[in-house]
């Protein structure tokens, strides 16, 4: 592998890993509060479609981004109502939201298939005339990704809100006894998770592909859920995980760019197989890092 190819892979893995980073951070916030959201794939699709539609209508990708964050958050609050408000089964509700997001994004995105948009602009922090430094001129979401991961980490581990949320995720009954209202915190956490998931989806349509296509997230929501386990529910580890998987994705594009004769179908399998491999390796160790009440429905303190 020569230097230019390596630089290209590194640069584009950060670029394509960004949507995974936001989605993973969102899922971590929810899971720290004890809620597994398998509907993340659907939330990302809704973010990608509404972000693209709003950008196409207004011509401003930042308005599109705001629309994606808002729609992701509203959709995730719907999920929160089911699993917290109505105490429904989390796995089934999450899968229902996956279907819902798939359908709703197809409906929202339909008029905008093939629409030309101006995507998120690259901030020209480095000399665009230089071939190598041009590679690291990204859009704002890429630069904000790692700082937001640190922010989420600080929020979870160094604020009172984070402590309360983690208490709810470990034992809602004890949290309730300590005067914390589990439901309120879970609603807040899932609203934040929805914002991050929506942004993660929007980065795909507003920066990576600049198109809307049905089901365009291609399972990234599920890869992000696996990344939460990889990162041991720690936002800082999520940075490493997201960029590792970004590398797996971008390797294919870069190899195609240099004309390597490898089937794109086989290359496209890599992120999914890598995810399964990582989950298997992590499975050999007991997952003590998982919040104790993860996935359990809290019916009140008995």
């Amino acid at each position, binding site marked *: 592998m020569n230097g230019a190819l390596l630089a290209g892979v590194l640069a584009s893995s950060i670029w394509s890993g960004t949507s995974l980073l936001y989605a993973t951070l969102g899922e971590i916030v929810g899971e720290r509060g004890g809620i597994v959201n398998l509907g993340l794939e659907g939330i990302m699709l809704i973010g990608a479609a509404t972000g693209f539609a709003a950008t196409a209508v207004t011509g401003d990708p930042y308005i599109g981004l705001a629309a994606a964050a808002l729609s992701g958050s509203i959709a995730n609050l719907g999920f929160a109502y089911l699993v917290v408000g109505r105490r429904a*089964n989390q796995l089934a509700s999450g899968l229902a939201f996956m279907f819902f997001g798939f359908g709703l994004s197809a409906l929202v995105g339909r008029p905008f298939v093939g629409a030309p948009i101006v995507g998120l602009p690259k901030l020209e922090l480095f000399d665009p005339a230089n071939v190598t430094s041009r590679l690291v001129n990204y859009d704002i979401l890429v630069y904000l990704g790692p700082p937001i991961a640190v922010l989420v980490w600080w929020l979870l581990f160094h604020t009172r809100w984070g402590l309360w949320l983690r208490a709810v995720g470990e034992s809602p009954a004890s949290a309730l006894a300590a005067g914390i209202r589990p439901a309120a915190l879970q609603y807040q956490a899932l609203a934040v998770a929805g914002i991050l998931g929506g942004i993660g989806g929007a980065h795909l349509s507003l920066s990576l592909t600049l198109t809307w296509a049905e089901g365009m997230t291609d399972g990234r929501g599920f890869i992000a859920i696996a990344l939460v386990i990889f990162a041991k529910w720690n936002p800082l580890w999520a940075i490493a995980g997201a960029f590792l998987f970004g590398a797996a994705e971008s390797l294919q594009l870069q190899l195609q760019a240099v004309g390597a004769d490898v089937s794109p179908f086989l290359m496209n399998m890599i992120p*999914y197989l890598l995810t399964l491999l990582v989950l298997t390796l992590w499975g050999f160790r007991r997952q003590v890092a998982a919040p104790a009440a993860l996935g359990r429905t809290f019916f009140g303190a008995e």
Partner: protein
Amino acid sequence: MPHESATAWRWRLFSAQAAAFVLIAFIALAAFSALLLAAGRSPLKAYVDTLVYVFGNAYGFSELLVRMTPLLLTAIAVALPARIGLINVGGEGQLYMGAWLATAGELALQDQSAFVLLPALTVLGFLGGGLWALVPAIMRALRLVNETISTLLLNYVAPLIIGFFIFGPWRSPESSSYPQSPAFVDAARLPTLFHSRLHAGLIYALVCLLLYWLTISFTRFGLDMRATGGNPEAARRLGIPVFRYILAVMFVGGGMAGLAGMAEVAAIQGRLVSQLSPGYGFIGFLVAWLAGTKAGGILAMSFLFAVLSSIGDMLQITQDLPFAVINILMAGILFIVLGRRPMGSAAK
């Protein structure tokens, strides 16, 4: 009611449940209609078109049963593992791999007679889906990876395998623009019924559903599974081989979805193509979940979801919407059922 017989009581319970479900379906349908109106479409036209098409003549009804066939099989693929508490969301990938192995068999055995080919393709379709499901089953049985996430991820891998073969080694030389495998020989085509697209796959599906019902209701396996689903640790101490049950139900379940894939290539398409299924594996999950994994429920829900799929077809054909839009309505029904009462263990 003092002296009510058990049958009468059961009937009253059933009709109450059915009435509640019809109400739920209508609420979801009303919400979906509002959404379609907001998108500038005509829901009423779609519903009337669908009803006229599906129930207006024998051909339309036969097409409905064609739709229902893969749903029955993919629903069993979800329901059987759910009996011991496993969540198999990989029906879609299992369907594709059943189609893949059946196609491999057709390419290898195409000079054989139908008496060899059809049983061989059936077995291979079953094996393709079953072996594909065995991967997450083993990872789950060894307590390495949760089967929900692994089956979901494998759904994205299976179509890529199909893509690799029909763009590569199996690409038909006759069609240069649209990649697909060569057409199946006549002897490898599943027989059709009543001069329609209805095919022997429906008989497979109904026989499988019957076997499923008999197994869970009347055999020791059904009882063992119920015990395992209720409390795996207790089941283990009772001497039930939980490890083997995990592998067995996932293998057989995956095999059911594989049969659906085999029927799609051997009866409907007549060759391996990239777009085999509009999400039958996922719809089958909804069917099995809403049916509470009961055999009768699977039959009724498959029929209902075949009708809903037909609405999706109508929206696509006459109102310029993607088929996927129908997922909103299907998810809506599940939302109401989920939100109606706490169902922490209903998937079991």
